[in-house]
């Protein structure tokens, strides 16, 4: 949960930018670039694309900030744009992957997917970097909507109410999606937990 000061500070910067102060927009970028980058990274699991997508998020913000009506927090609005962009990218990649795998035989597909499946065996969990990779890959296996709520909750520590406002869903839906996402993560990270608990 963010504090009231952050709300007001953001509103002040948005108002200044709406009045033509470009420096205020630059400050908003600096303030949120890390959070947005990590939401994109956790959502897509691809370090290479993060910078381009974060840039795209802020370009969209730049183009539409004049329509921001101060009826929700700025970061809710910013995260909504981020999550929607990530969901679009995930869908675009799924279509691309379906087409590229469509031309392979079953054996070739198994071969291509083997490194990902293998990363869930205990031997692959030995190195810290690989552990992170395992967690990241587990996240990528979640349904996109479950993934989004889990990231906003675990990484950004938003309250259920804030997540509901950000994703324009009910609090009950947030509660249920978080529970399901965690259940899936528990199953996917079984080996991780064996070592940790």
């Amino acid at each position, binding site marked *: 949960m963010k504090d009231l000061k952050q709300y007001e500070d953001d509103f002040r910067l948005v108002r200044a930018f709406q009045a033509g102060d470009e420096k205020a927009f630059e400050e908003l970028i600096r303030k949120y670039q890390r959070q947005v980058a990590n939401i994109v990274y956790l959502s897509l699991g691809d370090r290479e694309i993060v910078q381009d997508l974060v840039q795209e998020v802020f370009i969209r913000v730049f183009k539409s900030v004049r329509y921001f009506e101060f009826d929700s927090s700025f970061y809710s609005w910013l995260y909504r744009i981020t999550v929607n962009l990530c969901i679009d990218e995930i869908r675009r990649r799924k279509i691309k992957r379906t087409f590229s795998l469509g031309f392979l035989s079953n054996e070739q597909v198994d071969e291509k997917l083997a490194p990902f499946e293998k990363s869930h065996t205990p031997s692959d969990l030995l190195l810290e970097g690989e552990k992170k990779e395992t*967690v990241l890959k587990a996240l990528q296996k979640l349904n996109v909507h479950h993934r989004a709520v889990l990231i906003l909750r675990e990484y950004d520590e938003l309250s259920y109410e804030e997540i509901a406002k950000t994703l324009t869903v009910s609090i009950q839906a947030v509660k249920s999606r978080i*529970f399901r996402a965690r259940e899936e993560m528990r199953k996917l990270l079984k080996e991780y937990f064996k070592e940790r608990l």
Partner: protein
Amino acid sequence: MNHSHLFQMLSSYVDRELDAEERSLMENHIQKCPECERRVAELAAISQAVRSVASMSLPASFAADVLRAIRVSADESKGWIPAEFMARRILVGLSLVVLLAFGFTSLTNTDPPVTVERYLRGETTDSSESQILMNGGEISQDDVLLAAVSKH
């Protein structure tokens, strides 16, 4: 209360999203239930795992780079006329040409004025009949009377 429902409540419990009564209920249960206690530890581990993965940071120049990209894209769009605007311009141009041509034809038309008398005598052509309509020519009562007298 069954365990499936309890697990769902545990998720809200670790997020501090239960009210005081539910929270105390859960705390009492966790103390007595090793399975739920293990679940709480797993949920905490998931949170910690997700946070530990989030290690992305962007270059210090990122904000300035974004603004530069926005300016470049704005400059590029200045010299480019979208297809919709181009089509609109062509339509306006064509309409002007049609209006000018029509105005010119009307000015250069030398046909005598059309009256009811000439019409009833059959002295008008198709074009002069349309002309009276197009020009909004008016027929007076005298025209009608004169035409009626001369016909008989």
